[in-house]
């Protein structure tokens, strides 16, 4: 049972344009959401997070939006840069627990 889903396995965006990565979840107990970025041969690194009491969190070029009623979140990267090319994982946890449930990932390629 895939509780966190990323339906787009890959995305290609031109440098300078907006990248939008989507994530859906089914478990209503999830109330903290994170995005991780992973380069080849490296472990995932934390990028940005949002709690369910908010609908938007922004950090520089990265913004995460949460729509609780739709059980959907998205990561916006503006402007996209070649160094953003990586696999992005959406993850979720319930409350004060620390067990992360990851999505399957979206490979972002930013082209020149």
């Amino acid at each position, binding site marked *: 049972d895939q509780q966190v889903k990323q339906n787009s396995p890959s995305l290609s965006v031109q440098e300078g344009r907006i990248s939008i990565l989507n994530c859906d979840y089914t478990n209503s107990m999830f109330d903290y959401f994170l995005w991780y970025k992973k380069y080849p041969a490296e472990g995932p690194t934390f990028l940005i997070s949002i709690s369910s009491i908010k609908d938007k969190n922004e950090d520089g070029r990265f913004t995460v939006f949460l729509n609780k009623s739709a059980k959907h979140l998205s990561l916006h990267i503006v402007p996209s840069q070649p160094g953003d090319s990586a696999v992005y994982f959406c993850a979720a946890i319930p409350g004060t627990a*620390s*067990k992360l449930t990851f999505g399957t990932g979206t490979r972002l390629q930013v082209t020149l």
Partner: protein
Amino acid sequence: EAGVAQSPRYKIIEKRQSVAFWCNPISGHATLYWYQQILGQGPKLLIQFQNNGVVDDSQLPKDRFSAERLKGVDSTLKIQPAKLEDSAVYLCASSLASGTGGYFSYNEQFFGPGTRLTVL
């Protein structure tokens, strides 16, 4: 600050053989996690330790996988005997003690580079 260290980085074995992975977490991190990432999937938690006690091992295939964290620092994950479907990247992560702080308090997990296991 040194990150999470893992070894070996790569391992190739034949099915039914045994293999062990080692993890050294970030100094001061009480919580340690082992994840399995199969190609095309997201990381899946196998086991979580807080200090040297197991917090969650509900997804660990206990008939063949075992893990320990002696002295609450380093950890080893063992597979015996290995199956073809165990081919994956095994990631270790660490964080400050889980469950501290208030609601919506999340202690960031820092991941090591992983060990890529190929079972032939």
